[in-house]
């Protein structure tokens, strides 16, 4: 598996990364010269107000968008210059995504939603195994409409990890969930990071979540305002709301 091949090494080396939307007077500097290193096994939380640039950073890391300037080196490969099909390959082989609104395919069961990924990935997990990892071994043949929000998000996580990605990117994974369900989802993410060693980046509005991370990045106006390294990660169960 990829994470075993590169133990505790730098996965991303980001230098002078900028993203500008629009031109002229309407130009918006969503990211403004970000420098950053991300390592395998790390759980990083990105904090910041709306419009601070955290989603833009995540999208660039995930190969959903290309930067206006700067370098974004993934294991020696500069993604900033990659074309559309290379980015598609990158997303398929390297990245697992978890979104705020789950984005499951409504016409597929939980098992099939996960199986979808294993159809295109190189060395995937068995869908049942991935679903067991998120605690849904009993709900595998349910359609999304038959699952609760938290369950749907856990299916989404199972889908993201089933291909054993090197990078797991989560954009507000608990944003649409109530507190208790949100905690369950975070526990799953923490466990996956711990057990599989996947570099995990989680965007959140909720500063409390920061305590579960190895490192907390705070963004503001497209720049990294501060970086804090937690001496020890707090288990999700001990987070104080």
């Amino acid at each position, binding site marked *: 598996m990829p994470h075993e091949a590169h133990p505790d090494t730098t996965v991303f080396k980001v230098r002078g990364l900028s993203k500008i939307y629009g031109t002229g007077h309407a130009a918006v500097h969503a990211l403004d010269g970000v420098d950053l290193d991300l390592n395998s096994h790390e759980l990083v939380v990105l904090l910041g107000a709306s419009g601070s640039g955290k989603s833009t950073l995540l999208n660039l890391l995930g190969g959903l968008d290309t930067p206006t300037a700067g370098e974004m080196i993934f294991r020696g490969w500069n993604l900033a210059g990659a074309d559309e099909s290379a980015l598609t390959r990158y997303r*398929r082989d390297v990245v697992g995504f978890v979104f705020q*609104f789950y*984005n499951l395919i*409504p*016409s*597929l069961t939980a098992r099939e939603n996960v199986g979808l990924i294993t159809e295109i990935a190189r060395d995937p997990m068995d869908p049942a195994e991935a679903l067991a990892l998120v605690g849904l071994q009993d709900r595998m043949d349910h359609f999304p*409409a038959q699952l609760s929000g938290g369950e749907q998000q856990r299916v989404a996580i199972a889908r993201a990890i089933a291909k054993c990605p090197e990078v797991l990117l989560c954009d507000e994974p608990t944003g649409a969930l109530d507190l208790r369900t949100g905690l369950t989802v975070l526990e799953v993410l923490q466990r996956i990071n711990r057990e599989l060693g996947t570099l995990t980046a989680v965007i959140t509005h909720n500063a409390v979540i920061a305590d579960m991370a190895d490192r907390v990045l705070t963004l503001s106006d497209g720049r990294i305002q501060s970086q804090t390294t937690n001496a020890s990660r707090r288990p999700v169960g001990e987070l104080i709301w």
Partner: protein
Amino acid sequence: MTLLDRKLLRDLRSLKSQIIAVSLVMACGLAMMIMTRSLIRSLETERARYYASQHFGDLFASLKRAPDSLADRIRAVPGVGAVETSIRMLVTLDIPGLAEPATGQINSLPDRRTPELNRPLLRAGRLLAPAARDEILVSEAFADAHHLLPGDTVAALLNGRKLDLRVVGIVLSPEFVFEAPPGSALPDNKTFGVFWMSAEALGQAFSLDGAFNTVSLTLSPGAASGPVIAAIDRLLTPYGGRGVYERADHPSNVRVDDEIRVLKGLSFGFPLVFLSVAAFMTNAVIGRQIALQREQIAILKAFGFPSSAIGMHFVKFACVIVLLGTLLGVTGGVLLGHKLVIMYHLFFRFPSLDFILARGALLAAVLASSVAALIGVLGAVRRVLRLAPADAMRPEPPANFRPALAERLGLARVFSVSLRMALRNLERKPWQAILTCVALALATGILVIPNSFRDGINHVLDFQWDVLQRQTVTVSLQEPGSPRALADFRALPGVVLAEPFRNVAVELINGTRSRRLGIRGLTADGTLQRVIDANQRQIPLPTNGLVLSRALADGLGLKIGDPLQVHALEGRRIKTTLVVAGLADDFAGVAAYMELDALNRLMREGDRISGASMTVSSGKWPEFLKAIKATPATAGVGIKASARASFRDTTAQSIGLIQTIYLVFATTVAFGIVYNSARISLSERTRELATLRVLGFSRRDVGAVLVSELVILAAVALPLGLLLGSALAAAILTTVNTETVRLPLVLTLSNYAFAVLVVTVATTVSAILACRKLNELDLVAVLKARD
């Protein structure tokens, strides 16, 4: 302009290609409706005007020969209005520039007065001078085919004497709107023409002065035709009358009626189907628009816009489709109508057959398209009206799915995940799937129809000319001749084989059913003109008994072994009873066949022949033609090759145009329905497809997921379409088949392959166009949005 209207304009702009697709399908239906209704109107109006202005008769009869004085007795029959008698003869013509002899039907015109009925209409030159022996009028169709002008001469054999006749005028006649050789299904203006000549001159040439052999008459106002027909039949029988028939059975008029009947069928069925498809497409487009604008609608409602105003907003959407569809449909209908009117000039000779736009059809078109669009939009708008603002603010709950039927039956393992998605989507919206499938089947079906007619016609032609009539040429005599005439034919240059035939006009009677036609006497095992059964085997003619066309036997209610009464309508008017000895399977006309010697024994006139079928060696063909043109006593010469060529030309032109129209319509429907389905599917599943892209599916993979539903539908629709097309072709054939031509249903692999190919190409191209929208998918935006 209200703000809602401004929103409407912007929505329309963003949906323009889908709106065009719906409007085009609607336009096809409307174009067909306007074209057919207008053509019916054009034909009926012009026919009525023409018949009235040229005093076309109500009843018609031909007979052997009767003195002119009989006309007064006919006039005296109660219920009879005007009466006009004339002489009508078939002659052989030698036309400059035409190697083979042509056949002319010469009709007499009274010398010192205008005919009371069936007046020719002068198109060029002048009418005949009284008693002019060498002057003729020529039908325009024949004149056009040979570029004949007033002043040109035509050589004709009149009762054995060769005469040079001078064309003084070019005319049209209400009796020959459809000008074809007697019994022929299509015109052959190269080798058959109609002429008019002074009654005195024609009468003298055929020793018929003071006599006539055809009569036509009108009924006085309010008179019923039945008793008049019976009375005149009684008067004509002693003079060899072959039965009075009405205008509805007049061969030329029947062909116009047939065409109008076909048009009427098309004017209803075709638009109905196309407009139904358009209604469904409208519903799909607007329904999707409403689903997408759920939140906007909620906000408008929350701000206090009345539901009616919002409902109206979407109705206006439909109105734009109606407007565009009507505009395109009317333009298309008028253009096609003009093209078809020109095609009609090939078949129907009217003084001025112009395209008349049926205004009623215009109104009906607007109404029909409005109804179709309203039906389409109504269900969708009802959803808007019901939507409570608070509900609408919330996203729609995730759609409910379940395993597809095929999976529940245990086939799940066989299917890939994307195939499962497609099957479940289809099953969740069965009506959408069924209607898309039906529309695609329709597109396939309407391609099969014209080609099956083309193949049917070719089959008939090949059967008629390769199996039934294997002679090069058929020559008929003015009057039945002796076996010497056959010897004379055999002596003509190049004749390899000559087989005699005899025609006798008879009435066949079975109980209350009867039929007048000619019995054709042939040699028992003839090799040229043959009688063929259903298995394409020759039926040897028995020495007693008759072989009937299957259609004739059906009409008379007869089967093999049944007796029937035969009354000869010429000669000694022998009456006898014969047995049905066999049934012949033929496609053109109906016929009764007898062994030649048996027929001659029956007629008690000794050995007589009406003509001969011959094969002529190609090396001697010019000499043969030269000789036959100079042979006296020939009434007509039928040359197979030229009849065949003319038939092919005419059908090629008409079928070609109709094929083009059907092709355009089918392509439009296939293209429109697939494009629309793909776009709606794309819109409904934007989020799903974007998710797949984010997860690492390539554009091609995602495109495949998008079109796999359409591929499934097309795979079901194509065979259904072929079945539908075959059934429609069969149904149309049963309505258009007449005694003159019975087209068999011929369905070839190449016909099917063509239909499948066209629909597949249209489907693929439109799917590719719709898939190009995938490139515009904004992955980030889609993922951030709620559904």
